[in-house]
């Protein structure tokens, strides 16, 4: 099998991240407070917890997508490779190139499949047609979409199936070669088969990207995660309850709440 360029793309070192007493407020209301958590380089960190406990909010802090939501306030510290990113001197646009995001709902642009990938590439300075074509082909192969769409690259991406759309969105993030990838329930809108395909794809990113994934599917978290973090709402505010390796969280949790949640008693 032809190894794609992205597969070979082993950077010298992938970045790690670390949050320190991180809190996010929507207006006066706190979404979550005091989250201190490491995100290890090249590993898959799974965020689990019931609805509304601030998982999505936490992810959107990590690439400062919160800047786009009016009336938000982020307190605390987030470091990407020891560099503080919650800092007005840090260019949020450059940051988001390094830290890519996949949303819960697949959101391909209303362009052709080809242009969905070419548009961000062109904007980031890759304009030569052959280079674009090559990058797009290898990335689509990487997400297992190439054989399905190679004959209709120039038709609208909005006609793809849900699973294909989500893989296209993953490809769109990967084609820019980010270092960290944030995935917000990437499989929740998909049927079990597509979900399995996307899950395998994510598992294959281990070691090539630093991955943070939010999932409601505990079995999935256990299958693909290296580390896991349980969030919970306490007094209407999201909190980090427990963090550890997947092994630890699922087989030897320190907190009763964690034990109850991972065993399906609560949540």
């Amino acid at each position: 099998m032809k190894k794609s360029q992205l597969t070979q793309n082993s950077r010298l070192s992938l970045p790690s991240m670390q949050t320190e007493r991180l809190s996010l407020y929507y207006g006066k209301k706190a979404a979550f407070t005091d989250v201190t958590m490491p995100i290890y380089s090249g590993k898959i960190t799974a965020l689990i917890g019931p609805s509304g406990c601030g998982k999505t909010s936490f992810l959107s802090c990590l690439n400062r997508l919160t800047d786009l939501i009016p009336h938000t306030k982020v307190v605390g510290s987030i470091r990407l490779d020891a560099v503080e990113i919650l800092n007005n001197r840090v260019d949020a646009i450059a940051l988001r190139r390094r830290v890519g995001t996949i949303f819960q709902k697949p959101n391909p642009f209303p362009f052709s499949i080809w242009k969905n990938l070419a548009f961000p590439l062109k904007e980031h300075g890759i304009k030569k047609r052959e280079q674009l074509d090559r990058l797009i082909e290898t990335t689509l192969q990487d997400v297992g979409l190439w054989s399905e769409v190679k004959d209709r690259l120039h038709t609208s991406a909005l006609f793809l199936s849900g699973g294909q759309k989500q893989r296209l969105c993953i490809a769109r993030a990967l084609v820019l070669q980010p270092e960290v990838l944030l995935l917000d329930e990437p499989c929740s809108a998909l049927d079990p088969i597509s979900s399995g395909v996307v899950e395998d794809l994510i598992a294959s990113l281990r070691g090539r990207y630093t991955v943070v994934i939010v999932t409601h599917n505990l079995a999935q978290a256990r299958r693909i995660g290296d580390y896991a973090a349980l969030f919970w709402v306490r007094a209407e505010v999201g909190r980090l309850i427990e963090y550890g390796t997947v092994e630890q969280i699922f087989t030897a949790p320190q907190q009763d709440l964690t034990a109850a949640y991972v065993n399906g008693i609560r949540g």
Partner: protein
Amino acid sequence: MGEKSKNQISLPTFIVWAIALSVTAVFCWILGDILWHGVGQLSWEFLTTEPRNAGREGGIAPILISTCLILAVCLAVSLPLSVGTAVLLAEFTTTESRFGRLVRRSLDVLAGVPSIVFGLFGNAFFSIKLGLGFSILSGGLTLACMVLPILIRSAEEGFRAVPTEYRLGAAALGLSRTTTLWKLLLPAATPGLVVGLVLGIGRAIAETAALIFTSGYVDRMPESLLDSGRSLSIHIFDLSMNVAGGDANAYASALVLLILLLLVNGMATWIAQFWLARRIKS
């Protein structure tokens, strides 16, 4: 579905159908009337010759040209202004911000102002204050003021109808706000822009009151934008109200006006769609 038989029509259903049918009937009646009286007069010669004998005889060539010029001036000014304002309103102010609310409220009031008021304003401001006189330019600018509220509001709706996911998705790819605006949001908002354009053109092309005081009613061929020019709507008004025996040509002109309206709207829609299709592919 209840037990009642299907061919029993309930009263509300009947009323709704009756209203729909009578609206359609009125439209068809107007259309039929204009066609019936106008189609006999219509010929190539009618479109390409100057009016004679106060419009009772001859054609409408200069009037057609003036109408198109007035419309062109109006769109050239109002389109960029309205898209710019809509972007400001939709992308850089929130729905609840005080500035946005103020602008929106003013636009809604402006949209309801009778056209004769715009005519008087255009006359006082463009014709007299700016010294443009009775000219196609004054008329076009006055019309631009008049259609601006409609264009802005529908363009704004167009931008607001673009899903937030696109904006977030673009931001997450490290794309700047300007790039997102021009290359993603604008093409995605095109349907809303087209709706506004169609409404705006419709209102502009049918306008009479605002033009009498600004572009005037000289029916000679205009030589520049600073010449006075008579629009089709004014021509129709003049022929049917002031010129005895002008009815036949008034009908023919009305028919031309209708055709022009359909043509311009078709073209606007087609251009927008063509542009959109190009955006999707390349």
